[in-house]
């Protein structure tokens, strides 16, 4: 489409659930290596925007393009799309019947047909990235929330995605555990990973995001560099930032 360097781009995206308009003409784009933070009140459509990017929801109108895939095309190759996108949710969603290693090797082995031995060394590599090498043979329920979330991030990384989507990945964690997860995300950013993250951690967003999108009532109400957090142009963002800290 128009911007060849964009990894993710949304143009005039509309999405309703029945009578409820959740996305009302959302446009933004994320360049390679860029970190975008989406902020906004609960219910403003942030999760829905992420879910539309990964095609968990179909949009009503507009276009979404991710790494050359037309996500809004009904014929889009979902398997290829999902290999380019990694998504991590608030509730970790590790597979409880599998060890951490099996959680990680499952997708590379069954989707990419990577050989078992290769997948296992990949698992070690991504676990080292999130600081969990010693948890290879643990089951998810033996891990703390922060460890589970790091393992979930490692599981996504093992598919070697071109862009990572994070949806409030620290919101379910006790405050003392959020730091270890945020540190992993910071390291990813430093490595040049393209990321779109919905977050309530305003200080973190300010520190890490190249660009910030403030969503309000299904629209991109304000967007810009982290500077907009200290000097909001709209009363809605001013109010959100005032209450957000």
């Amino acid at each position: 489409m128009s911007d060849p360097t964009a990894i993710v781009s949304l143009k005039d995206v509309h999405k309703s659930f029945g009578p409820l308009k959740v996305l009302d003409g959302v446009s933004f784009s994320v360049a390679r290596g860029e970190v975008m933070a989406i902020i906004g009140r609960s219910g403003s459509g942030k999760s829905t925007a992420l879910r539309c990017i990964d095609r968990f929801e179909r949009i009503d109108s507009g276009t979404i393009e991710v790494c050359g895939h037309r996500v809004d095309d009904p014929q889009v190759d979902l398997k290829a799309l999902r290999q380019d996108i990694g998504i991590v949710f608030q509730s970790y969603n590790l597979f409880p019947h599998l060890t951490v290693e099996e959680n990680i090797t499952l997708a590379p082995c069954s989707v990419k047909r990577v050989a078992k031995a290769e997948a296992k060394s990949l698992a070690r590599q991504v676990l080292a990235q999130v600081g969990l090498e010693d948890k290879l043979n643990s089951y998810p329920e033996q891990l703390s929330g922060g460890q589970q979330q790091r393992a979930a991030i490692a599981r996504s990384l093992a598919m070697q995605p071109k862009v990572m989507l994070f949806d409030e990945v620290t919101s379910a964690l006790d405050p003392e555990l959020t730091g270890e997860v945020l540190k992993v995300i910071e390291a990813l950013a430093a490595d040049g990973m393209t990321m779109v993250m919905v977050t309530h951690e305003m200080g973190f967003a300010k520190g890490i995001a190249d660009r910030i999108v403030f969503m309000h009532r299904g629209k991109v109400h304000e967007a810009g560099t982290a500077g907009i957090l200290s000097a909001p142009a709209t009363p809605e963002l001013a109010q959100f930032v005032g209450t957000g800290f």
Partner: protein
Amino acid sequence: MGGDLNINHLEFLGHGALWTLGLSAMALIGGGLFGFVLALARIAPARALRWASGGYIQLIQGTPLLVILFLGYFGLAAIGFDLSPLVAAGASLTIYNAAYFGEIWRGCIQSVPKPQWEAAEGLGLSRTQRMFKVILPQAIRIATPPTVGFTVQIIKNTSLASVIGFVELARAGQIINNSLFKPFLIYAIIALIYFAMCYPISRLSRRLERRMALGRAQPIPA
């Protein structure tokens, strides 16, 4: 007539008990296989499959097993299909129990949290891979207690096959009683044999449940 219970009677009961086990195995395997297909059909993306399997389950669950047995044996015979009592009983039990397995297992599959589906989908697993590698292994754990519980029902339900002339345990007892006229003694023995078949299964289910819970909590040795 009258007389005392002797070794021949006990042997006859033993035979009946073996047939009860045989019928139960047929009902379990046939009903289980068909029921698994029904459970998958109930949650299939294709509406026609969901509709057909749902209709089947409603229909069978609304029909007494006794009637299904009569239909399978006398009904089919009347229109020219002469089935042996064994085939008629096996088929009827399969048809009947599949409806219950289908519904029990559908519930178990659907009780695996939806985010598990989405996490697997986000990793690029196909629908079949999501089902077989992520959802079913978790559903099996959930399904074990109700399935084993229902197996006990299956064993007891096989006694109905006596109405089409099948000599399983209950019918064997009836036959012996017809000659000995010691109903309390004989039916007490029958009850005991049924109990001896069912109780270990209940025990097994509890052990399995415990072992599964443990297996999840303990690291697997490398």
